[in-house]
């Protein structure tokens, strides 16, 4: 069982997965863009600006999901000392930062026609900026610290402290009066998004997920090669 998770087998699996994602990605991207930009109807209040939702919402979800995963793996790494989690986190963090920045930028572009302003320091927007800052701190800890043990310790502390911000982001629209609307899609309970908009949103979420997986696999493959390069003379 543990032999299956050796870096050689993981490397082989990564190559297969990269090939698979590359072969289906553009087809799903074209379907997603057709739904998002052509087939989905305009909103009865927001008009066509609602189409920004198809990039803004998946980017925000993935930004949050990446940090949640980083926190979980950091805690597990603290307990079980599994070094692989450190490399996984190192590969996930830039993806999370990219999506968080995209969520903030597209949110600002959506805010101008909808709220009449590019930016407001309300709870949801501010907590997303805080998340972005935690991502930057987390990535900087890899760049500026030298000892691996110290990097693991500091980055894990940053991730665990940063995770306090995650429920604040989620519930900010309920706890405070914000410009940002409350959640329209809920895992439990009904959601207020019409199926004609829900389908494009789910297809675009799949596009973003595949893209995130592709970048993660390429980054993780780079990490494996980096480690193997260090150990090549020892073999």
């Amino acid at each position: 069982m543990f032999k299956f998770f050796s870096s050689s087998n993981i490397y082989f699996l990564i190559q297969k997965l990269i090939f698979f994602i590359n072969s289906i990605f553009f087809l799903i991207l074209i379907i997603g863009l057709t739904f998002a930009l052509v087939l989905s109807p305009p909103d009865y209040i927001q008009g066509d600006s609602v189409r920004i939702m198809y990039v803004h919402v998946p980017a925000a979800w993935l930004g949050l999901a990446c940090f949640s995963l980083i926190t979980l793996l950091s805690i597990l790494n603290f307990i079980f000392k599994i070094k692989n989690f450190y490399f996984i986190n190192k590969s996930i963090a830039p993806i999370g930062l990219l999506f968080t920045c995209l969520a903030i930028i597209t949110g600002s572009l959506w805010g101008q026609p909808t709220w009449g302003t590019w930016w407001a320091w309300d709870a949801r927007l501010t907590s997303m900026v805080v998340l972005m800052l935690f991502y930057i701190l987390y990535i900087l800890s890899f760049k500026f610290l030298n000892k691996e043990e110290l990097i693991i310790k500091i980055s894990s502390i940053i991730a665990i402290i940063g995770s306090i911000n995650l429920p604040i982001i989620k519930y900010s629209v309920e706890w405070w009066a914000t410009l940002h609307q409350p959640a329209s899609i809920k895992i439990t309970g009904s959601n207020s998004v019409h199926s004609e908009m829900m389908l494009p949103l789910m297809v675009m979420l799949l596009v973003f997920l595949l893209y995130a997986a592709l970048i993660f696999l390429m980054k993780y493959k780079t990490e494996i090669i980096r480690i193997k390069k260090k150990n090549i003379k020892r073999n």
Partner: protein
Amino acid sequence: MISNYILMNGHGIYVWLSFSIVFISCAAVYFRTKKTLKKYEQEFLTELQSLTLEEKNNALETSKVARQIFVANSKVN
């Protein structure tokens, strides 16, 4: 008809700009990641080539990863 679609009742600028920023940033990150991966593969191969024949054969025999990078690069070259 087409200009109406592009303008989207005055919202076109925000929609197209959002999609363009997402597309360009994602493409930039993809190509940068790919370039870094290729760079590390090349560095790994250079390191492998710098070994003595015995060390190189030993590395290729014991490390599946080394073998896969070596074979993949041989195909490309």
